[in-house]
């Protein structure tokens, strides 16, 4: 039994939130195998993280999504049936499956059933590759850009991931947008008119806020923020008070 290592202090919280940098995950999971204190902390905090998916507004999944998914499911089920009973034997659980960490539960193989591997491939071909296509790929690098223009006493930073548009704007000590108003994020290309986004936000009492900036920033030169009436605007009604270059 190894002792708790100081470098992993508070790592359990980061781990259950899946906020450990990828290069640290394996090290922490290896540490978990020998540190009862960290294991206990993960077990204590995991149910809290499991409750977080409940917090977003509950939305209805589009009906056409069910149609798409069920068409794949029925096609694969038919292929499995046609392939015979051997195709429908679930993969034998390995010791690693039985003792694996929580994350491995979600790293589920598409090919848990031998017959299903073939079925999946066939259905992917039948459906034009949509079912079997990998949805995601690419690198993972992020950079931080500091706002050039902010209200006096405030600050703002934009975190941009390269090879994609995912970015988040974080403000500190930003004044409230005013009664009946919200802050709205805009994108600007060159000196063109600001393009509206659906990113509307307010601030906490200390002026801090975090807001995802929708849309790819690939061809965007600046991210702007202005105070707008609740519900947002199609064009800025006030001069943007935050301007962040994207490069």
């Amino acid at each position, binding site marked *: 039994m190894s002792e708790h290592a100081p470098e992993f202090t508070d790592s359990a919280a980061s781990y259950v939130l899946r906020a450990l940098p990828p290069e640290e995950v394996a090290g922490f999971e290896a540490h978990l195998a020998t540190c009862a204190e960290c294991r206990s902390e993960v077990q204590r905090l995991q149910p809290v993280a499991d409750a977080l998916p409940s917090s977003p507004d509950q939305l209805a999944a589009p009906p056409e999504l069910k149609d798409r998914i069920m068409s794949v499911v029925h096609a694969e*089920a038919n292929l499995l049936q046609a392939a015979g009973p051997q195709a429908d034997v679930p993969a034998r659980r390995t010791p690693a499956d039985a003792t694996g960490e929580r994350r491995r*539960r979600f790293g589920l193989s598409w090919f848990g059933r031998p017959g299903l591997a073939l079925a999946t491939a066939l259905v992917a071909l039948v459906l034009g590759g949509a079912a079997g296509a990998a949805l995601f790929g690419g690198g993972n690098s992020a950079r931080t850009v500091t706002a050039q223009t902010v209200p006096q006493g405030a600050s703002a930073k934009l975190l941009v991931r390269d090879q994609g548009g995912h970015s988040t704007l974080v403000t500190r000590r930003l004044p409230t947008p005013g009664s009946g108003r919200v802050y709205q994020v805009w994108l600007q290309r060159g000196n063109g008119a600001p393009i509206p986004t659906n990113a509307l936000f307010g601030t906490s009492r200390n002026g801090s806020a975090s807001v995802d900036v929708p849309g790819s920033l690939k061809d965007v030169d600046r991210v702007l923020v202005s105070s707008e009436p609740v519900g947002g605007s199609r064009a800025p009604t006030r001069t943007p008070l935050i301007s962040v270059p994207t490069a």
Partner: protein
Amino acid sequence: MAPPENRDTRSLADEDLMHLVAKAQPGAFEVIYERHSSAAFSLAYRMVGTRNAAEDVVQEAFLNLWRSGGRYDRARGSVRTWILGIVHHRAIDALRRATVHDRRRTGDEGIAERLEARERTDVQAAQREESKIVRAAMDNLPAEQCQVVELAYFGGFTHSEIAELLDAPVGTVKGRMRLALDKLRGSLTGGLGEVRT
């Protein structure tokens, strides 16, 4: 309208349905989908930000569940937790690998892209009540603690990225995460149990 053969499966518990999913029975999978697709879509939408990208994540997650249903282990938690874990995992993959964000479009979905779920079943009503409880607990967190949880869990950022973003030491960010989860644990103890029972 459910086909006749689905009428009996609708009375089964999630855990029993998963046994049928493991045997590649589409009817059982369909019931699981109907029970949990709203929660899955809501989480995906919150994380990736657009309807199209959220649909991709949910489709990928449910097909993953269909193809690996035999691996569900009820000792490790509810089916719902398992499904939402898959969705979260897929959404983080999408965010960190960034490709999904190329699909984000500005202005084409409008400010009012909301698909309010109708409370068609007791399950959905309970989910909405649970949503209120968790959100209230989040709202009661100190702003700096709520911020790191939001950035980490829903934004898919690592603690190192958050530290850079906030001009704060990594240890401070990790500490805020722990404090936040501690407080949420205290707030949620009891509340969710009443909804789920």
